[in-house]
């Protein structure tokens, strides 16, 4: 989803120009008909729905615009205009806030599950519970991620359960099996490290979602509520399990500590030293691209496909002590935004779009809809040696801890956690400190937002 973090910066001047240009322009968001009553489309007229997303639209994918064109061809009465936002999630959230306040926001927008509570607190989404109920049966557990305060604000699009991906050939050479418990994992890591291979990498830069997802896999939650107050339990028994697990392997130097989005990560994959990792399901779509044959460019010669290509497989993460459970790492839904005059029609499209599973799979999404894609991408057959990856991802999806939810202001918790996790890499902190930093940052975030909170 984000091959390098630097790309958004390249696009930023354009985004700013785009913001200035769009701010003054009437967006076909349907705000103009606020007196007409929600959902009552004027007879015989075409309803205009605008949809803002940040799906990759990369090479070889079915472009969102094409999917939307198909809808428009089949539905002359509901015309959808899709716009791709070229920036990161945070920039899009600010853009939505600004536009919706100026009554020029889109009708539908892609929101990360972690952003949904935040958007709700800011009053930027609509309660479409009645409409959503009609489509509820089409979706799995992620449906709950679009419910805030008992109100459903949209439909889920994709999920990011943590999975384990590994090089099966290298594992066989080392005589190790896919670890099913944390102890097995540590032993396997030690065996591999003795041979200069690493079966995992501590992703400090992804710690906010990656470690919270593992806490969920260990049966914990970071946030819950009691007596109408937030309860922050970032530091818990479950998180201690996760912290001890990584700390012991980092201390033993049996795992790597490279940032996920550092070029060194791809280098470690390419040179064969990194032979596995706990990864979000959406990484499956591109993580092995580093092994592909490269065509020659002006500056680099053509390279052949790596011998490692086709040796990798997807498996479930080990049992973190709570049975066959995994946790969420990312994933997003499409919400109906405040000011959308036609929530009924917007939700009709929303459901249709999110059930176009084959098209969404081509975008690299592990879809939240229950309907399984008909075939997995040809690329996956090559990269995963013909494994039925979709089946494995679907198992992970079913194992998602359904209780894990985010708080409003989670966006400010992530950088604190990442900063602290980076200190672990530099040797100036422990993994337990990471959770302590998350605990403090969460309480601060809620307090600063003026929301009621009790600690642990």
């Amino acid at each position, binding site marked *: 989803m984000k091959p390098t973090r630097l790309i958004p910066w390249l696009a930023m001047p354009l985004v700013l120009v785009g913001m200035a240009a769009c701010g003054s322009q009437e967006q076909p968001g349907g705000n103009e008909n606020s007196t007409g009553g929600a959902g009552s489309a004027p007879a015989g007229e075409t309803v205009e729905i605008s949809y803002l997303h940040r799906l990759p639209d990369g090479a070889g994918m079915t472009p969102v615009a094409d999917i939307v064109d198909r809808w428009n061809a089949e539905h002359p009465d509901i015309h959808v205009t899709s716009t791709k936002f070229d920036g990161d999630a*945070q920039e899009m959230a600010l853009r939505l806030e600004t536009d919706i306040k100026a009554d020029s926001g889109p009708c539908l927008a892609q929101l990360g599950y972690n952003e949904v509570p935040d958007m709700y607190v800011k*009053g930027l989404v609509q309660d479409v519970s009645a409409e959503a109920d009609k489509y509820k049966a089409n979706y799995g557990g992620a449906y709950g991620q679009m419910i805030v305060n008992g109100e459903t604000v949209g439909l889920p699009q994709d999920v990011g359960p943590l999975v384990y991906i590994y090089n099966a050939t290298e594992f066989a050479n080392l005589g190790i099996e896919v670890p099913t418990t944390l102890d097995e994992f540590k032993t396997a890591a030690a065996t591999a490290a003795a041979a200069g291979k690493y079966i995992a990498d501590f992703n400090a830069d992804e710690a906010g979602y990656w470690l919270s997802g593992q806490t969920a896999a260990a049966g914990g939650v970071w946030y819950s509520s009691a007596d109408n107050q937030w309860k922050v339990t970032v530091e818990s028994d479950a998180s201690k399990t996760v912290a001890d697990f990584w700390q012991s392997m980092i201390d033993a130097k049996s795992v790597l500590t490279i940032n996920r989005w550092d070029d060194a990560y791809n280098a470690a994959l390419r040179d064969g030293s990194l032979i596995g990792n706990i990864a979000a399901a959406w990484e499956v779509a591109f993580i092995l691209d580093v092994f592909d044959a490269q065509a020659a460019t002006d500056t680099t010669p053509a390279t052949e496909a790596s011998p490692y290509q086709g040796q990798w497989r997807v498996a479930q993460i080990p049992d973190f002590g709570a049975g066959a459970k995994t946790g969420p790492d990312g994933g997003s839904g499409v919400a109906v935004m405040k000011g959308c005059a036609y929530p009924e029609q917007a939700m009709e499209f929303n459901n249709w779009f999110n059930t176009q599973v084959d098209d969404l799979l081509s975008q690299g999404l592990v879809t939240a809809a229950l309907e399984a894609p008909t075939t997995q991408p040809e690329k996956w057959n090559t990269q995963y040696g013909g494994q039925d990856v979709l089946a494995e991802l679907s198992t992970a999806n079913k194992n998602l801890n359904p209780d894990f939810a985010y708080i409003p202001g989670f966006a400010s918790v992530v950088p604190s956690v990442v900063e602290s996790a980076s200190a672990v890499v530099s040797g100036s902190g422990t993994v337990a400190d990471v959770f302590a930093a998350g605990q403090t940052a969460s309480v601060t975030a809620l307090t600063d937002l003026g*929301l009621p909170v009790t600690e642990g």
Partner: protein
Amino acid sequence: MADTTIKDREGAPKPRARRLGHGHNRRLQAITGWLFALPFTIGFLLVFVIPIISAVRSSLYAQKPAGGGLFGGGGLVDTFVGLDNFKAAASNPDFWAGIGRVLLFGVIQIPIMILVALFLALLLDSFMVRRPGPWRLIFFLPYAIPGIIAAIVWTYLYNPQLSPFAGAFPAIGNQPFFLAPQVILGSMANMTTWTFTGYNMLIFLAALQAIPSELTEAARVDGASSWQVITRVKIPMVRGAALLAILLSIVGTVQLFNEPSVMQSAATWMGGDYMPMLMAYNSLMGTISPSGSGPASALSILMALVAGALAAIYALLQTRMSR
């Protein structure tokens, strides 16, 4: 003769008429003047005065939940909070740590950059360089590259995987040499020096070329050596330019943004509050709490005050010293 007639004709009531006519003229002139100034005034109001007023206004407000409960009633209301945002910003140790970093940065980087710029300008102004045109362009070229692009290119150059030279430097505490906590300010200083030396050189060069040649000629006739011409005539004459260049550098340093924000994607240990401008940006983006336009505006205004104070202190010291 004619004079007397006119005087006669302009009897008693004339002075008033003349004043009227004069006033009319002045009004016309004033209107013409304002018309000429209009494009500037409109631009100044739109891109300068109004944003400042709006920033000051929003720094006095915070977005508070409209109701109670876990989700604050599902809406936010703009609430007047007086100076609360400023109190929060000024009592935040992270903010002052950021200010400390830019100060440390500035104290070392600005003198180096200004001296190099002055040296290059003197070189181009001397008789040693026959055709300064191409050199001027070459030294100035880094400034023509958009700041974000330059920051990205440099970050790639600091990355051991991509750089032709960074791999030769030892990692410090698992961090690449140029991105390690002990080195990163130096890496950033290198980036800004590369970008802005040429720009400051142009300021000096313009000042040097404005020195009347009579002065240097007179000095030479009086037997001054080249070195004396430089130190006794040229450098004192560009003091005004130096003041300008240093003031711009101080303000620019406090506002450092491109470099830390791009490098932060590679050096994740930095956090979102490494430097004050980055902190203000991330407060607006919601990745630093308290977030929102109120706290972000308060941070920006506080930063402007710090930059203003530093610039004023420098200007005062400078004038006192030159007396």
